[in-house]
């Protein structure tokens, strides 16, 4: 038998010129096609951010409806089912469609710039992640229009309330929409995280060692690891729930041997790391903002990075503190209580270090700094109430009361959202090339800070005098009215603040009257500030050779030997990968697949028994998905070359 050999090509000198198998948008594509087919991490970051800001307004509107309903006892602005749908959608939207994608927007935009990369490792995968996120957002919000309306199961979807057996509307489809949208959002997060991990590990500029990475990039890495290790738990839990609801398996059906406890464990094994997935990016942002506005390097860089990693690691060991009242027994509750207390230590370390950073600095109070300071104080309060909850006897009173609502809003608004807003005010000039109006920024901060505290501080007290959460109303005579009214007023103030802020962000993309930002408006410290604003398509005309941790700062103020160098311009120019339709096709296939699965069964309207299953649409979706992937594999990265001048970056 003759042996056939292939051409030997050394990997590093391989030339693999792909034929243009499919028409791909070329180098000079503009307009809508550009946005649909882009694989540029900056544009993907924009789209992530804008979509998330849109959902922030949607989720905020839901919150305002919730607050209006609680204005007084026995109000009827929403009836109980509508209210329950509202808090379910508010929670799910804010966690999965606002805070996570806002973080992802910054990961996408900032992280490659911070490590000196021209793009992420897998640009097309990044685009697919964006389309999956948008598909998930669409799926979740489509639920309003079908049988039963939106899910009314809480963002935690505790079994067995999600079981068909306990549906309160005949053939309620809400939970199905919830399950499928969370699945596809999980796909989005996983794809993005694989990408970020690979990028940070593999795409660093020469000299950018791991211990020179900016803290924000470190937090991106930690969060990405948290996502790839935590999301499988919820994915499987949701798949089991999907099988329960669609095919009648008995994973969570207690009447047939299933255990509702299992759902809670699986959900919180995901759900607690999720809390850190939400807060660590904000911590990373604050760790960038505070040194910039104090004109000092981060105090205890190593410790901040290490504590971030420890928080991420320990985040997997404390999930059961969400379940102190479910009867896990003395040993388990005690163990989780102690572990939960321990996790407060690395968190505290970060706060000490931020204050240490400011010590001896020159502190300027511009909007990003104000939000960062707001973050520190508000997160501190949220953290303290968190420590209270780690104590089981205290938790026995606080669990599922408004005290907990106050606690996690202090962490997620006062913490995560303030941090992200700080990031917007900090990095948006880099994205748009325009400085935002400081005065409006300060008004936004004032409104948000006051509104936020007026809304959520009274909730501590409301919880202590016995208002349970997730109740659409309260009876007279509990003394809840006055405090709820204060909270509602505060919520509207907060809402106005956020709306102005969002308007300011969006308008800064279009408003030509704003001052140009220049390369480094804040005199900030990390690598992205050596680039022009807005950043050029290819990020770096010449690859920088990194010499120190705060490269932009050292270039301006540091000794000569710490200035970064540049690799010489390349004769071949900068290789840019081609735009591609494949991610959009693949994403559309996935959306068709899940929508098809949602509607595949014809049910008897009276009894809810499945009469017929029709898998035509899911199969079509699946085929489109597979075709997308095959096209993807065949078209290859493609590309064209740009020839920037020396300093065009």
């Amino acid at each position, binding site marked *: 038998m003759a042996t056939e050999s292939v051409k030997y090509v050394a990997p590093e000198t391989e030339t693999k010129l792909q034929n243009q198998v499919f028409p791909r948008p070329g180098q000079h594509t503009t307009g809508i096609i550009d946005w649909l087919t882009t694989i540029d991490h900056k544009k993907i970051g924009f789209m992530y951010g804008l979509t998330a800001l849109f959902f922030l307004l949607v989720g905020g509107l839901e919150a305002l409806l919730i607050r209006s309903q609680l204005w007084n006892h026995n109000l009827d602005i929403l009836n*109980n089912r509508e209210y329950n749908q509202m808090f379910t959608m508010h929670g799910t939207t804010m966690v999965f469609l606002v805070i996570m994608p806002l973080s992802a927007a910054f990961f996408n935009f900032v992280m490659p710039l911070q490590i000196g990369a021209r793009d992420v490792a897998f640009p097309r995968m990044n685009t697919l992640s964006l389309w999956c996120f948008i598909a998930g957002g669409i799926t979740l919000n489509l639920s309003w229009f079908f049988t039963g309306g939106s899910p009314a199961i809480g963002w935690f979807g505790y079994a067995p309330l999600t079981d068909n057996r306990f549906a309160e509307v005949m053939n309620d489809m809400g939970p199905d929409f919830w399950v499928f949208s969370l699945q596809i959002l999980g796909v989005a997060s996983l794809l993005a995280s694989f990408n970020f991990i690979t990028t940070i590990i593999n795409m660093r500029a020469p000299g950018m060692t791991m211990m020179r990475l900016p803290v924000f990039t470190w937090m991106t890495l930690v969060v990405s690891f948290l996502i790839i290790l935590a999301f499988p738990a919820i994915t499987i839990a949701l798949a089991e729930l999907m099988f329960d609801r669609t095919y009648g398996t008995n994973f969570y059906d207690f009447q047939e041997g299933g255990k509702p406890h299992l759902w809670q464990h699986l959900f919180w094994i995901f759900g607690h790391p999720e809390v850190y997935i939400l807060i660590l990016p904000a911590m990373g942002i604050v760790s960038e903002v505070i040194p910039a506005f104090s004109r000092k390097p981060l105090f205890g860089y190593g410790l901040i990075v290490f504590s971030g990693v420890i928080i991420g690691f320990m985040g997997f060991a404390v999930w059961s503190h969400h379940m102190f009242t479910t009867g896990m027994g003395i040993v388990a509750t005690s163990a989780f209580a102690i572990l939960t207390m321990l996790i407060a230590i690395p968190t505290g370390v970060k706060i000490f270090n931020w204050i240490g950073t400011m010590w001896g600095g020159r502190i300027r109070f511009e909007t990003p700094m104000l939000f960062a300071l707001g973050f520190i104080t508000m997160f501190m309060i949220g953290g303290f109430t968190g420590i209270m909850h780690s104590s089981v006897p205290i938790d026995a009173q606080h669990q599922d009361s408004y005290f907990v609502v106050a606690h996690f809003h202090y962490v997620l608004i006062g913490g995560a959202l303030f941090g992200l807003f700080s990031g917007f005010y900090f990095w948006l000039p880099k994205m748009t090339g325009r400085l935002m109006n400081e005065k409006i920024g300060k008004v936004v901060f004032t409104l948000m800070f006051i509104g936020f505290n007026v809304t959520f501080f009274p909730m501590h007290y409301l919880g202590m005098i016995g208002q349970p959460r997730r109740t659409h109303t309260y009876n007279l005579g509990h003394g809840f009215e006055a405090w709820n009214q204060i909270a509602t007023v505060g919520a509207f103030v907060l809402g106005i603040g956020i709306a102005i802020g969002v308007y300011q962000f969006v308008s800064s993309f279009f408003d030509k009257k704003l001052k140009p930002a220049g390369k480094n408006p804040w005199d900030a410290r990390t690598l992205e500030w050596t680039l022009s604003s807005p950043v050029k398509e290819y990020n770096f005309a010449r690859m920088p050779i990194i010499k120190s941790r705060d490269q932009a700062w050292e270039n301006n103020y540091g000794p000569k030997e710490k200035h970064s160098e540049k690799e010489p311009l390349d004769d071949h120019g900068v290789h840019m990968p081609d735009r591609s339709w494949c991610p959009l096709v693949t994403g559309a296939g996935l959306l068709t697949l899940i929508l098809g699965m949602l509607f595949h069964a014809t049910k008897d309207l009276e009894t809810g028994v499945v009469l017929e299953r029709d898998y035509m649409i899911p199969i079509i979706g699946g085929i489109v998905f597979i075709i997308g992937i095959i096209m993807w594999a065949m078209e290859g990265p493609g590309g064209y070359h740009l020839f920037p001048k020396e300093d065009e970056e």
Partner: protein
Amino acid sequence: MIHKILSRQSLLFSLAIILSGGCSRIDHKQSALDPKGIVAQNQYDIFMLSVWITIFLFCAVGGCLLYVLWKYRVKNEEEAMEVPPQTHGNSKVETLLILASTVILVILAIPTLQGVVLMNRVPDPNDEATLKKLNLDREQIEGAITVNVTGKRFFWIFEYPQFGIVTANELVFPVTKAIRINLKSEDVIHSFWIPKLAGKMDAMPGHENFMWFIADQEKILSRTDRHGKPFKENVATAMPSVFNGKMREAVFAKQDFNATFEPVGGLFYGQCAEYCGNSHAYMSFRGLAQTDADFAKWVERMQNAQNPNLKTLQWDSTKEYEKGSVVIAKDESLVDEYEKGSAVIDKEESLVDENSTREFRALSKVSKGDEPNFSSGSWKKLNSNDYEIGKALFLGSQCGECHALNRTGIGSKGPNLTLFGLRTSLAAGWMRNDRTNLVEWLQDSNKVKFGNLMWNGERVDDKHPLRSFKPLPILEEDGDQLKEEKKELNKEKSIRVNQLVTYLLDQR
């Protein structure tokens, strides 16, 4: 010791709350800040400890932050361009701070672990040291009452296995004894939260949970009045007896339903704390503290009602009846009464026959062979006509399919209604249990409690017979005649409901 320090601190804390919002009272109906039992007191003490720790930390860290912000703020343009010394950290300071925060956490961890044990285990009656520390007598533990609590959408079943009785939504308990609560659920997850006595524990389907509490009579009796002045209430007014309706009267007399602070000390408010569906907000309950003697009498009444020793006999003309005998006989007048109501409820022949029979008590000895002559002075109706018709309606509207009345009825679909007339509240603690409310509830329970299962039936969109009591809406466009007819019909419905209410409220 720690307790004494903490109570002074709790004053300070309430002061802080006054400053923050101008509220002078913390003894709201469901307030965890006003513990009335050992377990809740322990939880409150640990909470206050954590509050002080965190206030200390907040002041220390926040003060430090403010100092830094003030001291190192940029005052002018030149300063903004200065380059401060670029220090990178100080490992000694950081190690010190980590150690300090560990120490603070240990301070919180120790009482936490003790508290976990206290919450989950009733103290051993032989462990005198613990009992002494908790200021308990041995017999308070040994005489513990067990209550099996079952959460259902959207009400609570309380079963007393020691006494073989079942009640719903109002947990009557002796003030001096430890109460052991076994929790389970028959549908989704609920959570039993009684803030002033013991915090909360989930009621899980397919898994039994445990909690316990013991009320503290001293604490129940020491109250504050409406102006915030402390006073001592006496036992009779703080814990009126339930078994003879005194509690109900006291609650009704002393209190507007909307009174913010509870004037009857022995009345505790509880709530389901785990989201359980549409009407989760309405799933509350009450705890009624009783003296030992009153509790024993209540138990006896419940036992009598649920294991009735009153046996009614079918009239038999060949038999002799002693004075005081109770017989069932047909009352023709009642059949007429009942038939008037046929517009409301589909009449079924057998039901009319069965339910229009009623009970009579002999006032003198009846000799053999006489037909019962009810017009004479020898017989007395046991109940009013309204009661009897109400009873007929209760059965005729299939109420009995879900509600056990004078039966134990564990696991029945609806709340057990035995001695319903003694209850202070209605619809799982949501309304005061009086005639007006009960009529409103029965005529349109969906309006009061949207999505309740009595209105919706077991299956979603089930047409429950109760819906026939709902008054017909009188519309503008209706003709005069139709309006008249509707009014007439609504009046009729109202009469029926009132008869049903009479029957229910006479269960006492």
